[in-house]
């Protein structure tokens, strides 16, 4: 039965190629517009580390100006001071913890063919690798011993290793950065988090690091952070003065493996700030936060407003396309009244006619969906060309491909429901009489 109705449907669609093309094009454009914008929102808003996002927490402490809050919404600052990061690292109350900041160092390759270049890196603790689980191609991260001894060690990303060592296993080799030699302890495999969630302050869509080095080593070498730095109060002069200041320039992540640990850590933070209040710091009301990964992404509004507006507009556009299709299907089925009347008179039941016409609508929906999927690819190519930093997020994944096909079929069938129902109401006699 299905294949017969399917053929009837195809036949009927072929009879008015322009009308059919118009319906398919309408659905395809509507689907492409909404799926392109939805893909951006889906990828930007999706969990970057789903297997442990609820165990990784971002520490925020409100050490800001007693006279003025950090922002108009009452959030605590989005980074922490060196002083506080050190205190939390030393206490070590979480299952794992890593303070970090962004650095930029000139790499001086041994190979004279490769010119020195400025590389962006991350100064952090050895726990970083266990917490965020970047995949290693060779070697691994460094241990707590290297953190304590300010080890001259480095973890390279795949791209940097490619550039410096032609992609070979470079563990044990030396890399010279800003006149200091570092030993390679690990090389990452391809690692491109679509959202750089561990440092949203310096750009959720910023490029990934080119290397990782111990935090303690960078502090010893007085490597200025190259990321955002905010101060509400002037610092004392000199490097020591800067480290002792209330300027915020570091990110602090903890891994807490159970809800009990989370509660303990929260109260530890509150105790810490209360202790600091006695020393004259933290003059603002207690406002510490401990967001998990997804909470932090939401708080920092990672999905740009423009993308949200685009989603709203494109779904309104899809609505117009669907209304358009309903109207055209209605016209088409009404025009077939004679044929429907004849089939009814020859014994076809209402459910049979209903099935036939729903299949016809479904064919339009699936064609529209398939065409729409192709247009969505084109749309994403356009988005990548328009927004340079969207290369990692303007990518179709399988969820969205399936969603596209389902959405367009459901949309077309829904659009077909009313016209089909109307077509089934045709009384056979009335139609046959006028012939």
């Amino acid at each position, binding site marked *: 039965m299905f294949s017969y109705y399917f053929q009837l449907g195809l036949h009927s669609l072929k009879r008015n190629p322009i*009308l059919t093309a*118009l319906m398919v*094009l*309408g659905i395809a*454009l*509507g689907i492409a*517009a909404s799926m392109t914008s939805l893909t951006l929102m889906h990828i930007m808003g999706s969990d970057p580390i789903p297997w442990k996002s609820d165990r990784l927490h971002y520490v925020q402490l409100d050490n800001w100006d007693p*006279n*003025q809050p950090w922002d*108009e919404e009452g959030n605590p600052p989005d980074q922490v001071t060196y002083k506080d990061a050190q205190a939390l690292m030393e206490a070590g109350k979480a299952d794992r913890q890593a303070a970090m900041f962004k650095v*930029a160092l*000139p790499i*001086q390759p041994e190979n004279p063919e490769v*010119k*020195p*270049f*400025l590389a962006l890196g991350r100064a952090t603790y050895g726990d970083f690798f266990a917490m965020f689980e970047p995949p290693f191609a060779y070697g691994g991260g460094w241990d707590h011993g290297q953190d304590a001894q300010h080890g001259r060690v480095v973890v390279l990303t795949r791209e940097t290793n490619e550039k410096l060592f032609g992609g070979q296993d470079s563990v044990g080799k030396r890399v010279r950065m*800003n*006149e200091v030699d570092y030993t390679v302890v690990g090389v990452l495999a391809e690692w491109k988090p679509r959202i750089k969630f561990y440092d949203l302050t310096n750009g959720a869509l910023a490029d990934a690091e080119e290397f990782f080095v111990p935090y303690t080593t960078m502090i010893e070498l007085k490597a*200025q952070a190259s990321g955002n730095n905010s101060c509400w109060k*002037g*610092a*004392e*002069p*000199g*490097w020591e003065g*800067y480290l002792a200041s209330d300027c915020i320039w570091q990110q602090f992540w903890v891994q807490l493996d159970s809800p009990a640990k989370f509660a303990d850590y929260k109260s530890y933070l509150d105790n810490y700030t209360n202790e600091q209040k006695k020393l004259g710091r933290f003059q603002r009301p207690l406002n510490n936060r401990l967001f998990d990964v997804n909470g932090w992404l939401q708080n920092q509004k990672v999905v*740009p*407003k*423009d993308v*949200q*507006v*685009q989603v*709203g*507009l*494109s779904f*309104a*556009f899809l*609505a*117009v*396309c669907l*209304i*358009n299709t*309903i*109207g*055209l299907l*209605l*016209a*088409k089925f*009404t*025009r077939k009244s004679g044929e429907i009347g004849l089939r009814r008179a020859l014994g076809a039941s209402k459910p049979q006619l209903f099935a036939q016409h729903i299949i016809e609508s479904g064919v339009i929906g699936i064609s529209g969906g398939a065409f729409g999927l192709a247009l969505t690819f084109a749309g994403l190519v*356009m*988005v990548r060309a*328009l*927004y*340079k930093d969207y290369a990692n997020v303007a990518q179709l994944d399988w969820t969205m491909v399936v969603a596209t096909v389902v959405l367009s079929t459901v949309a077309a069938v829904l659009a077909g429901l*009313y016209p089909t129902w*109307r077509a089934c109401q045709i009384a056979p006699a009335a139609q046959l009489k*006028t*012939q």
Partner: protein
Amino acid sequence: MEIRPIISALMRSKVALVLIGLQIALTLAIVCNALFIISQRIETMNRPSGMNEADTFQIASNGFGDGFSTKNAFAEDLALIRGLPGVRAATPINSLPMTNGGWSEGVNMQAGQKVPTTVTTIYFMDEHGIDTFGTKLIAGRNFKPEEITTRSRQSVDWPPGLIITKALADKLYPGQDAVGKAFYLNPEGAPLTIIGIVDRLIVPWPEGFSYNGDHSVVENSVLVPQMTAYGNHTGYLIRTEPGRRDELMKTVEAKLGDSNHSRIVRSLKSVEQIRAECYANDRAMMIILGTVIFCLLTITALGIVGMASFWVTQRTKQIGTRRALGATRASILRYFLTENFLITTGGLLLGAVLTYAFSLWLMAHEQEAKLLPWHYVPIGFVCLWALGQIAVLGPATRAARVPPAVATRSV
């Protein structure tokens, strides 16, 4: 006029009527709001930066090793660059308008002030800075060569005499001559004197720089006579004679690289390129919205054509009858045009309501969004009326060509 029979005919196909009306209503709502967003983006992108953008470019370098002295590099580089034929002026910089990276600082009127009066960005430069940027000194004086000092990494003091933009001067001393008057960057430090005022220079973050909801701070800049000699980083802005920028960009890059091998020359970019990158997202939004508007109007127009064609076919016999009873071609044409006008008008009235509903939704989403100005709605009305009439013209002409004899034939 034949409005009454048209309406009674329309009432016989209410669903189709509602569908087209709804489609037109949504189209109006989307087009008006999208056009408004586009016009706001155009306004943002057209904001003058206050600097010469056609003949300027930036270049930076990072030195490494003990042999590199930033202080020497500044002196040598500037002498080298200024000596090149075609270079009009050059200045050391820390940041530029529209680069989205720079220094912001609170501005205070009194010593010990708790909450800053407003905020500003800091542009470090030397006595050639104003000429290189291409902004105009409108009051007071320029920096003198002997006033230029070197700023060390964690320095917290400011030089005593600074130049500020007119926007900042008007905010600090409204209606007065600000030259010679004082303000504080560090409320615990010494008072600073305004020695000059420049016309305009916007901050590095033209979108998103605000202070307690005040967006006019985007033109608040303080020019500081210092070179930031730290982090082994040196940055320059170079202004060339008109038309020689591209050629000099290559020359300067090569010369700086050759002059000292223990450094990395980078960030070579013309200010025009910086502007394009700064507003790339606005441009993208405009192109995307423009594409949506185009597709939407096409779909709606084709939908009207489709429905009108269907109606014409359905009514062929009636049209023939009317023609046989003496209706002229013009009156058949007029019938379909009027019918479309009535449907469109109904849709547009509903659309006006939807348009503002949409505008309110946008305002809820974007704090900076404004309510749609009313004049977009009548303009949208006229455009969609015209679109409807043009779309229906084809089918209506076909209807007018139906011969009266059709009435006598069976279908």
